[in-house]
């Protein structure tokens, strides 16, 4: 892969920009298309897409708005930000945030462009705030600051795949998902961001066949790249075996922090396991109360639970619309938003509900418009298993290249039950179930029914006959069901398109290799012609 890039570099400009497929045989004229935006020899795109006057202006205005948000939120911590760029390897990836949004809006027009911008703005404003929280608390960046020390005294870090929802009852304290900013989101912003940490932990002795997400998290600990921002640490055993054991490393790294483990049961479809789950959560509440000297505030908690219910209802509305012939909010705009709304912000950020309300209104208008113009999706697909962090805009590529709309993503089908907002015990059971059905965990744990049977149910519900079956090469949970998926899809006449990836490490399976799997399937099985031939084969190994 890197050899190809180097060869192209050597060949000079003639080859560097011309991605394969952008030149027609026998002619020097380039075909117009979105593939021309990418450069094989550069990180940034060639130029911004022209979407017609109105949409281009809207897109440009959103770009400025995003930059304004980052400046406003991070301006007050500029000295720490500059120090952080020197101290932490992952920090530079956050400078590419506008490019991250651009990647996800390529090819979108009118309503879809607006949904996408709104959805991404909500999650980015939350992340930027979290970056600021890190910067203003971090002991490494503020070694002598009394203010930073005071903030640390009120802060608890959580393992990243576990929602900080329990903090709803501690409004005077701050909960921060520890690995979310250094690893999880950094890998989504910049495909190169996690490589150093993966190499570090493999050099330490970890086998390379394990999932690179917990691996990179351990690598970050091994090379001492975590900020020191808290007084307590709530670790977890979710969502998979890798996460279970990687806490050994983080607990060792944070040995000066008192630690409590939230350990949701595995077989969570059984009602009997909830007793233990609730006890475990009560233990966490007591642990925080004792160590931080504050009481769990049920009123504050119920307020957040109400907000969770509102957000969940908006999510279900989006799914309902996507079940119709006129799906609206699709692909990563749906999935990433929900992941961040619940996993990262855990309904503690009121902005999400506000933005959801606006998007919902817009969505209904878009739906009516699509119905009137009979604007149907060419192909209807769902995404199953865990997607590649380094290629979160894959579904938008499939939409632009082949007209395949991704109606729902397994990753966003996390916790979507409503919480009791009056009865404390019932609400605790709901919270326990919320933890049990977190990102990945909701389908990879709890027995095969949650992975296999649920997939076919969703195909039926969303009227989809294509499944992008992400084959995360290091995920043993889904790998263990590979043959059964294959057999059962065949029985049901569902097109299962296996797309290999390695979650955080594009060196194992590149973005291009992921696209090739779909290209091959579409041309050989569907005998389809691409909507945009320039997107069939291009090189983006070096881009963010």
């Amino acid at each position, binding site marked *: 892969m890197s050899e190809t890039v180097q060869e192209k570099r050597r060949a000079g400009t003639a080859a560097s920009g011309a991605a394969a497929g952008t030149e027609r045989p026998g002619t020097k004229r380039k075909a117009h298309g979105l593939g021309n935006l990418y450069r094989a020899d550069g990180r940034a795109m060639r130029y911004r897409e022209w979407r017609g006057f109105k949409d281009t202006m809207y897109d440009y205005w959103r770009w400025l708005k995003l930059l304004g948000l980052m400046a406003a939120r991070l301006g007050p911590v500029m000295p720490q930000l500059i120090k952080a760029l020197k101290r932490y390897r992952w920090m530079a990836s956050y400078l590419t945030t506008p490019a991250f949004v651009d990647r996800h809006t390529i090819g979108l027009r009118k309503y879809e462009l607006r949904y996408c911008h709104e959805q991404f703005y909500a999650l980015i404003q939350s992340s930027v705030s979290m970056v600021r929280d890190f910067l203003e608390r971090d002991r490494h960046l503020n070694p002598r600051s009394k203010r930073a020390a005071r903030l640390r005294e009120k802060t608890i870090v959580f393992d990243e795949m576990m929602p900080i929802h329990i903090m709803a009852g501690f409004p005077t304290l701050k909960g921060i998902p520890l690995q979310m900013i250094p690893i999880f989101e950094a890998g989504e912003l910049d495909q190169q961001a996690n490589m150093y940490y993966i190499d570090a932990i493999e050099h330490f002795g970890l086998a390379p066949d394990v999932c690179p997400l917990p691996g990179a998290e351990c690598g970050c600990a091994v090379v001492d790249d975590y900020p020191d921002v808290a007084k307590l640490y709530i670790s977890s055993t979710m969502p998979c075996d890798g996460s279970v054991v990687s806490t050994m490393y983080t607990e060792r790294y944070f040995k000066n922090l008192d630690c409590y483990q939230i350990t949701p049961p595995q077989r969570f479809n059984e009602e009997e396991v909830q007793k233990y789950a609730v006890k475990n959560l009560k233990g966490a509440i007591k642990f925080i109360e004792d160590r931080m000297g504050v009481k769990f505030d049920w009123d504050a908690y119920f307020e957040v639970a109400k907000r969770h219910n509102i957000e969940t209802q908006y999510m279900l509305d989006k799914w309902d619309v996507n079940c119709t012939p006129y799906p609206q909010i699709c692909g990563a705009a749906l999935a990433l938003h929900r992941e961040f709304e619940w996993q990262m912000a855990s309904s503690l950020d009121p902005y999400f509900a506000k933005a959801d309300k606006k998007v919902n209104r817009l969505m209904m208008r878009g739906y009516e418009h699509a119905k009137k113009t009979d604007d149907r999706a060419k192909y209807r697909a769902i995404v199953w298993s865990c997607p590649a962090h380094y290629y979160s805009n894959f579904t938008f590529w499939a939409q632009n290249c082949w007209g395949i709309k991704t109606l729902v993503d397994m990753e966003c089908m996390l916790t979507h039950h409503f919480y009791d907002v009056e009865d404390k015990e019932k609400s605790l059971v709901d919270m326990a179930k919320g933890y049990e059905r977190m990102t990945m965990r909701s389908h990879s744990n709890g027995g095969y029914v949650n992975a296999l049977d649920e997939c076919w149910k969703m195909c039926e519900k969303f009227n989809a006959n294509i499944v992008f079956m992400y084959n995360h090469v290091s995920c043993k949970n889904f790998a263990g069901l590979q*043959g059964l998926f294959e057999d059962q899809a065949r029985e049901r006449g569902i097109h299962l398109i296996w797309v290999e990836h390695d979650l955080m490490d594009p060196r194992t399976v590149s973005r291009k290799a992921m696209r090739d799997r779909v290209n091959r399937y579409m041309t050989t099985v569907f005998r389809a012609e691409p909507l945009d031939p320039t997107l069939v084969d291009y090189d983006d190994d070096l881009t963010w």
Partner: protein
Amino acid sequence: MKDLKHLYYFENLLGEANNDLVRQARKEGRYALGFTCFHMPEVLLNLDKCFSVRLRAPRTGSMEIATYYMSNATCEYSRALLERAMEGGYRFLDALAGVDACECMNRCMENIELLKTCDTDERFFFCNLDVPFSDDEDCVAHYCEQLNRKLLVPLREKMNIDVSDASIRRAVEKHNELSRIIREIGDCRRLENPTITGHEYHILSLVSWCCPQDLIMDKLRETLEELKSRQPDAKKSYRAKVVVVGSEIDDPELISLIEESGALVVGDRFCYGTVPGRSEITLDPDQPAFEQVCRQYLKDSLCPRLNSPHKVEQRYATAEKLCHDYHADGIIYEQMKFCTYWSYERALASHVMSLERGIPTLSIDRPYMSRTSAGQLRTRVQAFVESLEIKKIKARKAGAV
């Protein structure tokens, strides 16, 4: 050393899962309950007319069908079991007592169930336990609930098995007797010049996991007596003593390979080994036996799945103690390829042991059948043995020994 009288017999029993003793027990009208993991308490599978069979897939060759179903990225042990199940190798089982403790094994059990590879009649049942992640009292209560609902109730209702407190106590007594014999045999490895090799001991240990225990007790007792008067070779056949710590090993060839490379295996802290599987269970007569059994299994568990800081420390301390008690020169941390838990544990523990506790450590990963990677493994072990020898020479020169 002179061959042990029953070793050949024991070795033959390991040739297949459905061996002569299993068939004999089933002919007597007893029920064979298959299991794979320490977290399914073996003693509860030996109640009344039941007997436990810890599943293996000896002489595994190709695993193509299992690889189709579980991909080539899952642990070879679980794939080997699925392959053997699809070949019909576990049709003799009356129940399969699984645990949802690791992803690969859980999926293996689910494949075995969905692909209908066992002869299921109205008695047959699968179970899949939710194993807690620590050993506090909440976890014990959860574990008890799971075992009661998923194991004891089906045993009672489907097979009419006596699962009473008295029955559990009887099973514990038998378990303790077996454990005492096995541990006593194992103590021969503490001697300056041990009278049993690691390979021989591993065979005895495996037989105790894979056969109806009451049918091997006489021969095990005889073997113990034999060992008391067994003379070791005048010239030591090893260059260093090691403790093997890690994931599942049910392959005596691996231990044999390590010993052929010059390292005598004197400690076995791995799944299918005897630490902690052959620990005695102490019961308080005034407390329910079932709860005490569950508590002890969780307390004794040394699986990296249980990762509370005190459990992590328990694992390090156990490895260190074994090394000390059995006068080992070093530890071999091993993991089955694609075993996530042991991959993390091996990487960290090998650093902790060598850098913080001063115990030389070799860290290896290996296939299920060691013969498929014998050359590489032998080279690694030989190099480790040489490094241990060099350390000894240096220490002697420095006057420390």
